[in-house]
């Protein structure tokens, strides 16, 4: 079975999951569709949705078949699976949002196909590395011109659409780092001096790297988006480590990060709040439903929701997200049991509805995506491709870690999207471009292997 045929078959489970998920949600809302008599209609409609989803995926598959015949066969189906998770859960939360998310999914698949067809060879990115680095920093700077949401300058409003430029900036910065490290990694190792048993990289060659990356980090603190800064920092350290094989660089970086994080946690108000909420989510003074931002209400409710899911979950449509009017306090905010269920806390909703088993399945999908990504990096022949694939995969993995870790109270909660699952156009679009780059690297690597 050729790689592309495998891909085609692997798309079928994703479409099945989407159909099953939608059918279950329609059933749980049985009264909306005429109760028991709606059963036939339910299966028809959900199969239609599954069919449309499969159609879009097969369309993308055909583009891959023509443009990238040797690319990794499992990467796109795994992503399609994540997207079907997202569409089902978002539909369950809000049908209108799901319609928008479905539109974004189609646009994202289109963007992936466009990236592959237009770019053709990821090596071409190297020629524009400084332009790409500047564009990435520009994207990070953009939201500062607009008003902050929840204390962070994350999004810009264009008409009715909200764009999160950091999602695109992460790809730009990884491309720059991969290209720059490819040229200087040998110099970084050779020119290094040893001071007190610690290898210090030569400043002359490390300088430009620190400049671009340092600017990105400063901007992230400037726009107060800590979730993204963890992603950038982790991605940077991973790439430096892969490029130089020097553990000391990583140790220095981590020490700097701990120092910086301590400083920032003490000085920026809403970050200190987040850390406090993380330490004591169930403390009454932190648990303020009326004040969603800063308190631990969201985090604590998310933890309750996950515990409530049990092993097998409550089933689709089983999660209680809002109390009926009259049973809660006078304000609408008090009725919301779980704020932001479609973005930051979609993981908690999934755990509630599918239980521990479903959550493990979801995390396994992410693990497999990362495994494919690192596999691509290992197969790639040239340093730029290796660094690019490894860097993109690391950033992707860290994004999942930051949000899932935040929701499960492993680390302080910061708002980044769960890639391909959370509601959000920029996230879906940017991650599909990331996927396109991975597939491009993979195609060349496996053709040559």
């Amino acid at each position, binding site marked *: 079975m050729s790689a592309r045929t495998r891909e085609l078959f692997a798309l079928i489970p994703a479409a099945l999951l989407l159909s099953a*998920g939608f059918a*279950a949600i329609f059933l749980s809302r049985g009264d909306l569709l005429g109760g028991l008599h709606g059963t036939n209609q339910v299966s028809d409609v959900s199969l239609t949705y599954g069919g449309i989803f499969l159609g879009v995926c097969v369309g993308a598959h055909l583009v891959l078949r023509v443009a990238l015949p040797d690319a990794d066969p499992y990467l796109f189906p795994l992503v399609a699976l994540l997207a079907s998770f997202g569409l089902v859960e978002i539909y369950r939360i809000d049908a209108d949002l799901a319609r928008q998310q479905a539109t974004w999914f189609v646009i994202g698949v289109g963007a992936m196909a466009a990236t592959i067809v237009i770019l053709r060879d990821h090596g071409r990115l190297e020629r524009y590395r400084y332009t790409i680095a500047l564009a990435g920093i520009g994207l990070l700077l953009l939201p500062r011109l607009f008003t902050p949401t929840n204390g962070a300058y994350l999004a810009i409003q264009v008409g009715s659409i909200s764009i999160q430029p950091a999602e695109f900036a992460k790809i730009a910065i990884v491309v720059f780092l991969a290209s720059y490290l490819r040229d200087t990694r040998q*110099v970084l190792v*050779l020119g290094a001096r040893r001071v007190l048993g610690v290898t210090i990289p030569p400043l002359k060659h490390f300088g430009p790297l620190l400049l671009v990356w340092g600017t990105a980090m400063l901007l992230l603190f400037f726009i107060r988006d800590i979730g993204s800064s963890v992603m950038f920092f982790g991605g940077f350290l991973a790439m430096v480590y892969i490029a130089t094989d020097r553990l000391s660089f990583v140790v220095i970086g981590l020490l700097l990060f701990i120092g910086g994080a301590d400083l920032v946690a003490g000085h920026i108000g809403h970050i200190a709040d987040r850390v406090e909420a993380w330490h004591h989510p169930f403390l009454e003074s932190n648990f303020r439903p009326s004040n969603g931002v800063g308190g631990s209400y969201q985090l604590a409710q998310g933890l309750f929701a996950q515990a409530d899911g049990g092993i*097998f979950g409550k089933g689709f449509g089983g999660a209680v997200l809002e109390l009926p009017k009259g049973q809660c306090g006078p304000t609408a905010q008090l009725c919301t049991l779980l704020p932001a269920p479609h973005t930051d806390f979609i993981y908690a909703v999934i755990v509630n509805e599918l239980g521990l088993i479903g959550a493990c399945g979801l995390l396994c999908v992410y693990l497999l995506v990362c*495994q494919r990504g690192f*596999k691509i990096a290992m*197969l790639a022949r040239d*340093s730029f491709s290796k660094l690019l694939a490894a860097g993109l995969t690391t950033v992707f993995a860290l994004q999942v870690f930051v949000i899932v870790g935040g929701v499960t109270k492993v680390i302080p909660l910061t708002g980044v999207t769960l890639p391909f699952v959370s509601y959000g156009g920029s996230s879906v679009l940017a991650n599909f471009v990331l996927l396109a780059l991975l597939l491009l690297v993979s195609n060349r690597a496996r053709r040559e292997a």
Partner: protein
Amino acid sequence: MILDPISVALKYGFLAVLYIFLLWVSRSAMKDLRRGGQGQSWTPGGGSPVGDEGTSIHAAAGGNAAALDRLDPRLVVERAPGHTPGMEYEVGPGAILGRGDQAEIRLEDPFASSRHARLTRQGGVVILEDLGSTNGTYLNEELVGGPQPLHPGDRVRIGDSEFTYLDAVD
């Protein structure tokens, strides 16, 4: 409430499909792990060995500083008029490629200029530079403009002469 069994069935069906799919995909990952020691490619059709390719990025960079002293950057002849394919030229501290007498790597190629291109070492990196030749120097089939760092496996072409750059002790 009567619909509940169907709902439950759908949920378990969803989970079952999910896990069957995961098993299928991870099977190839498991194969990778098992074959890892033999250095086999995981591609079902193209089972060419990739060997230490997995971590090979450091074979080029040199895992540690001591290993770097042993590196001898060299050009291997792929095809060149007047040369046997497979012949190796060490770059040493630097070398001129060209048709002229003072060139360290003599090209008997009608398309080559007398001083055609230069290789210089900067730290552990070998830089390829065109010396204003008439017909240009190609690095991986791309015309060389300014100085370009060479990476192992890069192909350098001047006229009909083609070399592969290698710098690790294999």
